[in-house]
């Protein structure tokens, strides 16, 4: 399907206004019709990576300048000789060494002591709150990235505006705005082995829906067929990462590679989401090596490869890591850590105010701990998310994205360069 035909079909939908079609469809049709389809290459992109299971922020961004850190973690602290020093006080876990050059060129920042105002230590509740964007309120049915898409209509609603890599749409992208869940770009579309038969069947369904579907069924099917057409052009099977980038094997590396591919093919990607698990290190967490080190190595190699692959394009991309909470300051009896409160997040990309550990560091002293045991939260995660939406993506109305929260630029941690 050509671009002009797609716009024509959508405009044709406008003529049906008086027939009482549902407003969502009309809004989407109008957006698509009123906007040139070609995407400027510098369209800002946000990539969100969720570390499910609560990453130990203290062993990811290590406060090696604090003696208490070593006293509380006799078996699992990262020895000072292994820490990749950042600013004399904090340093990277050695597994994240591939990111040091990004710190040095000021495109990588860490935000420490960040988290939720809600005290829950349940993975289930805390992930839910971080994705709904409404800590403490369970009944929010949509996610904050979806609400951003709904309320911010400055950007074109292309089929690939918001994409989550995985079998199902995650909570963070659930809602009324269109968003794709893609397990594998190569498998998106009708599953018919022979290409000719697949094309024919695709056209047949496209005809069926063009002629007989109404409302959301019509607009969504059009988006789907447009996406198939775009993917045919992009040809995911042929993709080779640029600049010698080597993604780590596994689901996470594959998701990052496909995100890079979508960004480079200018299909209108604005929001991408992927997650990686294995952070719930209650037992035998390890130190410079071991369980957590292996997970961080995959993260570090993935981010470094992504940055390398995108090259110049990183000037308009921000990658943000997040995790539902942090872990206890003291190690437990099983050489691990239990559920805590604040954690650390990473922001990477050209627009990032890098080379800094941002946020107010509360220290590890007993008097400054949350409930006497955990790193206290000094940055509400909504202040960081809100800053990135406003200053990077240009969101106009943050109160619609984070209901019940009044975002205040003075509280922004300063993750995006002014």
């Amino acid at each position: 399907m050509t671009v002009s035909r797609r716009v024509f079909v959508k405009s044709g939908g406008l003529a049906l206004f008086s027939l009482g079609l549902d407003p969502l469809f009309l809004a989407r049709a109008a957006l698509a019709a009123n906007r040139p389809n070609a995407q400027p290459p510098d369209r800002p992109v946000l990539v969100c990576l969720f570390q499910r299971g609560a990453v130990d922020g203290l062993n990811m961004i290590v406060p090696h300048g604090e003696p208490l850190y070593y006293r509380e973690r006799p078996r699992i602290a990262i020895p000072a000789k292994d820490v990749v020093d950042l600013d004399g006080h904090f340093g990277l876990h050695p597994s994240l060494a591939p990111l040091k050059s990004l710190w040095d060129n000021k495109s990588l920042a860490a935000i420490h002591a960040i988290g939720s105002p809600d005290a829950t230590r349940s993975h289930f509740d805390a992930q839910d709150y971080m994705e709904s964007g409404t800590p403490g309120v369970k009944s929010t049915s949509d996610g904050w990235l979806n609400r951003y898409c709904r309320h911010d209509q400055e950007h074109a609603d292309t089929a690939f505006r918001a994409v989550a890599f995985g079998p199902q749409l995650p909570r963070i992208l659930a809602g009324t705005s269109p968003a794709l869940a893609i397990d594998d770009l190569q498998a998106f579309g009708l599953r018919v082995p022979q290409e000719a038969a697949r094309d024919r069947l695709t056209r047949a369904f496209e005809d069926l829906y063009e002629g007989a579907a109404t409302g959301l069924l019509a607009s969504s099917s059009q988006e789907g067929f447009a996406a198939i057409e775009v993917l045919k052009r992009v040809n995911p099977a042929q993709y080779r990462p640029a600049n010698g980038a080597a993604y780590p094997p596994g689901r996470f590396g594959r998701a990052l590679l496909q995100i890079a591919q979508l960004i480079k093919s200018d299909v209108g990607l604005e929001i991408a989401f992927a997650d990686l698990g294995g952070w719930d290190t209650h037992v035998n967490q390890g130190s410079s090596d071991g369980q957590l080190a292996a997970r961080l190595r995959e993260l570090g190699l993935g981010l470094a490869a992504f940055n390398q692959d995108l090259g110049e394009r990183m000037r308009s991309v921000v990658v943000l890591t997040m995790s539902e909470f942090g872990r206890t300051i003291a190690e437990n009896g099983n050489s691990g850590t239990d559920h805590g409160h604040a954690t650390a997040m990473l922001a990477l990309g050209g627009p990032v105010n890098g080379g800094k550990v941002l946020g107010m560091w509360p220290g590890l002293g007993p008097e400054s701990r949350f409930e006497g045991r955990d790193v206290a939260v000094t940055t509400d995660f909504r202040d960081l998310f809100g800053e990135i939406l406003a200053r990077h993506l240009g969101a106009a109305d943050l109160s619609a994205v984070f209901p019940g929260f009044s975002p205040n630029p003075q509280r922004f941690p300063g993750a995006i360069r002014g």
Partner: protein
Amino acid sequence: MRLRLLAVWLALAVPAALNAQALTPRDSALHALNRLAYGPRPGEVDSVARIGVMRWIESQLAFERLPDDPLADRERDFKLLDYDRAELARRYGDALRERRQMQREMSQSGDTTRRRGAAGPMREFRELGGELQQLAVVRAALSERQLREVMVDFWSNHFNVFVGKGADRFLTPSYIEETIRPNALGRFEDLLIATAKSPAMLFYLDNAQSIAPGGSAPRRRPGAPRGINENYARELLELHTLGVDGGYTQQDIIAVARIFTGWSIDRPQQGAGFAFHEWAHDRGDKQVFGVRFRNAGMDEGVRLLKLLAGQHATMHHVSAKLCARFVSDEPPDGCVDAAVDAWHHSNGDIRAVLRAIFSSPDFWAPQALRAKVKTPLEFVVSAVRATGAEPDSTLRLAQVVARLGQPLYLQPAPTGYPESQAQWVNSGALLGRMNAAIALAAGRLPGVSVDLDGVVATTADHGALVDAVNARLLGGTMSAHTRTVILAQLADVSDPVQARSLAVGLALGGPEFQRQ
């Protein structure tokens, strides 16, 4: 008695309204089968039209009298129905201990290679969740008591729990069997009290951990929860009863949470049943919208639930949700008012409320026909029923439903899945439906065996083939455009079996079949 007469009068009066709006008996049969059931099986539109749609509706409301032996045979494949909660609880406790033991060993040996894999001690409970999903799909596809299955789905969603959260892995099966199913067409108040006392809900919304300030268990573990937890109280008012605009305050939520302190669960070794812990209960006075609750232990909670069940806001909130399920995503006022009226007069008899909805002119209005988009569960089950297919007892068909966006019992938010098409219709999900339709028509959909010979005979006459597909699978709703497109696709297909597969696949994957 008067109510009974009223119901009979309505049952007789409505067909007249039908005639006035020129719905043919087949149209109204199809509409009822789409909404009160998971779509028609081959020939069912005609049989319902023959006995009369209102008589069929009455038979569905009086489901106890409908024989359901083939389903009962199939249910024997599901071993979860043989377990009782206490037995599952013991095994869950064992699995937890085994997992801790494994972790200790790993810690001591320094061996981190053994990850939580498929063979871990929790495997049985992950499979249990899958079996529970599949049982729901099999019942929806095979039961003669279709309206009951629809209502079980409705209430399981209204009183949502999440099978992936901790102990709910083993508490959810008994929640469905003992809490939801026996009350699905009973009195709302009984259902509400049953959910409040159910271990699955008490765990899911954390009430099991809600403790009056200063309360302490006789043998308190270090790190055990302290203090009041408001989650259940909030969702009880906002989602289960009054609705978000139900006119309650944060003070009411706190008072409700205090009333429910002590409503908890026995430890797994003791069967994980409902337990009221006197030591955790807040003995102070409470006020909920001006009504005073003096200390009466567990009875306070029961009294409060009865009070909530009888509130007008509750009747309105739940009736509107029922009308959204049965009539239209945006429920018409007339139908909601009729349901609330019936609720008042019947003291919350769910059958009476449903009867009022099915007798309402809004239910039979032409704009209600095909106004709703099927959920993934409704799409998959209606396609299986339309093709006379037989789901097997593996987990695969439930996985198809999950891939299309509706993993059953796995909605983490207590809202359940919304009753609106925007939740289900997105481009990836629609392509998924097309793929499922093509696979089903070709006999390749996992977890189901299909024999199209019993539904649409093969023929070299493509016009006759498409007409038969329209009549048998789409209940005559195929548009002229769809007919033209399918015929054009068939033009160069000479093999009659292939032609039939293609026509059936396009029809089930096409826009008409996505609606109900």
